């Protein structure tokens, strides 16, 4: 049976035990219809021209993880960014792990989507935000919506600064042979509130796992969201990350995406502006080797005047790895004085590595500042000679320059321990310990 058929036919089983009279259920059922109509995206679609899901869809994935799998804290501690001092919402094979988590309702809500979707006290918020931000017509998003049940639910009330970062971590244990996960996150940051979030997907042993994740983020007036995606999973894991952000006036939202490991990663990151004087920051650092494949598809929709967006993606590709960058900027006619910047720089370290990069600007306003640039290149031999003439061996000189290339994406990371952690990731990935921090 084709995997699509399995998803459709398993839906009845999924509905079992859910409240079918509920409006959320209607949303799910509608989403399933969209997925049924559209199916999985193929390379015939422009947005998926360079990324194929075909190979992934050959396997028979388990859709319903078994009841909570227990994992020893010591086994997974190393994946936490902070041992203590963060809120943690942790899932194992898609199931919430109260033992590993540290949630709160004290002043802010850091809890579970399953609770938010079912408990009456969250009803108003769910009605206002759930599936209101995500692109309804996107087939993978629709698929996630139809099975939406669990994930992180975060609400930061008005004028509240979350004093600790929030870590959302999805572990896959490897108990199921092949697993398909569909976490659904909703994050609402009310007026003048601030939050920092770190999201990570991690397999604990080599096994095929595909995560089709949807995160909706609503950033109210004057609020600030600082979001970090750490994609450094095993080579057997794939991730389709769909993140949708709506911003109100004077807000700032920043997403850093670090794609350092995994089989196939697709990031759909979309921003929509609902007010003036909004700032949107999108930063990405991709460092791949082997046959890894990462596809960044971004959209910044400038729908209001006087807003700015800043996009800076860097990629470093070794061996036979493949990178795709598709950066779309839309500027509505009324969005005058838009300042949109987009940059994508790529370094190919080996002959067989490939990158496809495509800026896509649709500008209907006439008084805007939009700039974009993309480069694909190799390390500068002249610069390498300069370093070598000072006694730095070729391999180290290359690593130093590669490191330097990646540097400015790290500069804007606001959490010092996270910055240090990523530095270590990168040093490991480059196979050289430079013995200093940039």
């Amino acid at each position: 049976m084709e995997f699509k058929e399995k998803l459709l036919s398993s839906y009845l089983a999924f509905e079992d035990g859910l409240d079918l009279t509920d409006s959320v259920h209607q949303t799910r059922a509608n989403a399933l219809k969209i997925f049924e109509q559209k199916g999985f995206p193929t390379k015939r679609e422009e947005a998926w021209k360079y990324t194929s899901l075909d190979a992934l869809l050959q396997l028979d994935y388990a859709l319903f993880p078994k009841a909570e799998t227990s994992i020893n804290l010591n086994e997974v501690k190393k994946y936490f960014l902070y041992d203590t001092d963060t809120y943690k919402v942790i899932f194992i094979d898609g199931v919430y792990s109260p033992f590993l988590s540290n949630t709160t309702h004290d002043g802010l809500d850091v809890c579970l989507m399953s609770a938010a979707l079912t408990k009456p006290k969250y009803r108003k918020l769910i009605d206002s935000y759930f599936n209101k931000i995500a692109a309804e017509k996107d087939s993978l998003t629709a698929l996630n919506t139809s099975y939406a049940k669990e994930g992180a639910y975060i609400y930061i009330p008005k004028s509240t600064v979350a004093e600790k970062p929030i870590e959302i971590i999805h572990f896959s244990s490897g108990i199921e042979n092949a697993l398909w996960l569909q976490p659904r996150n909703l994050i609402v940051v009310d007026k003048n509130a601030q939050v920092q979030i770190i999201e990570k997907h991690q397999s604990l042993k080599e096994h095929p796992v595909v995560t089709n994740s949807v995160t909706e983020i609503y950033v109210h007036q004057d609020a600030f969201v600082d979001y970090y995606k750490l994609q450094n999973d095993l080579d057997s894991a794939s991730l389709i990350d769909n993140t949708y952000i709506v911003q109100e006036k004077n807000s700032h939202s920043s997403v850093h995406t670090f794609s350092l490991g995994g089989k196939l990663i697709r990031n759909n990151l979309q921003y929509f502006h609902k007010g003036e004087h909004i700032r949107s920051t999108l930063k990405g650092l991709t460092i791949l080797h082997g046959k890894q494949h990462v596809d960044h598809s971004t959209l910044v929709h400038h729908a209001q005047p006087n807003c700015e967006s800043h996009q800076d993606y860097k990629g470093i590709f070794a061996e036979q790895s493949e990178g795709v960058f598709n950066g779309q900027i839309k500027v509505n006619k009324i969005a005058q004085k838009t300042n949109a910047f987009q940059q994508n720089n790529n370094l190919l370290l080996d002959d067989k590595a490939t990158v496809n990069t495509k800026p896509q600007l649709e500008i209907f306003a006439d008084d805007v500042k939009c700039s974009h640039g993309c480069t694909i290149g190799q390390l500068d031999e002249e610069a390498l000679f300069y370093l070598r003439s000072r006694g730095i061996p070729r391999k180290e000189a290359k690593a130093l320059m590669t490191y330097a290339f990646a540097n400015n994406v790290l500069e804007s990371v606001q959490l010092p321990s996270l910055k240090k952690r990523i530095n270590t990731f990168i040093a490991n990935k480059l196979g050289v310990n430079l013995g200093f921090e940039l």
Partner: protein
Amino acid sequence: MLTIENLHAEVEGKEILKGIDLDVKAGEVHAIMGPNGSGKSTLSSVISGNEDYEITKGNLVFKGTDLAELDAEERAHQGVFLSFQYPIEIPGVTVTNFIKTAINANRKAKGLADMPASELLKKIREKAQLLEIDSKFLSRSLNEGFSGGEKKRNEIFQMAMLEPALAILDETDSGLDIDALKIVANGVNKLKSKDNAVIIITHYQRLLDYIVPDFVHVLFDGKIVKSGTKDLAHELEAKGYDWIKELA
């Protein structure tokens, strides 16, 4: 220290050096002068191991070792240093981190452990003072946005840190105003000892007023056509290079 015999070298199949002979002993300062395109910078590139240049004939021996057999980094480990005419900008690597990496790479090649941080910092402070370099300058990205003078001063700072046996200063005077020139020359003079040697490659004799050479060689069309003392530099300054062309 450095013995060059009948050295021929080419770049992209074009012969630039056509039989150079040069003998540099420890404690000596040699100046190599010559008109544009005579092969001055090629000579410095060939000695320091730039792979764009190919030695086709002759010998290049440094302290008894055949340099032609060594990579650029290995030549640096032997004590060869080139102050670049056009230093490369490396955004994202600070001057301090760069120098630390270079020093420790050289120590590693000699089988030594990394230089302790306190010792390194002391040395950096001392050499920065010698070249009148502001400490803020050291935390900037290497050569990025530096003025011509700052780049050259940074080259000599690296030389001071690495303490090479043979330093080749390729057009170090170009882009320097007179004050910067004096600072750089003073730095080089202070670093000079009976154990090391300096080759100054220059178009003008200006720098030679401050770093006095023991020998001056005139390079023309890939060959040394005349050698002499510092008086030769003055003669070139007064008479230009045309009479040299007739010697060739």
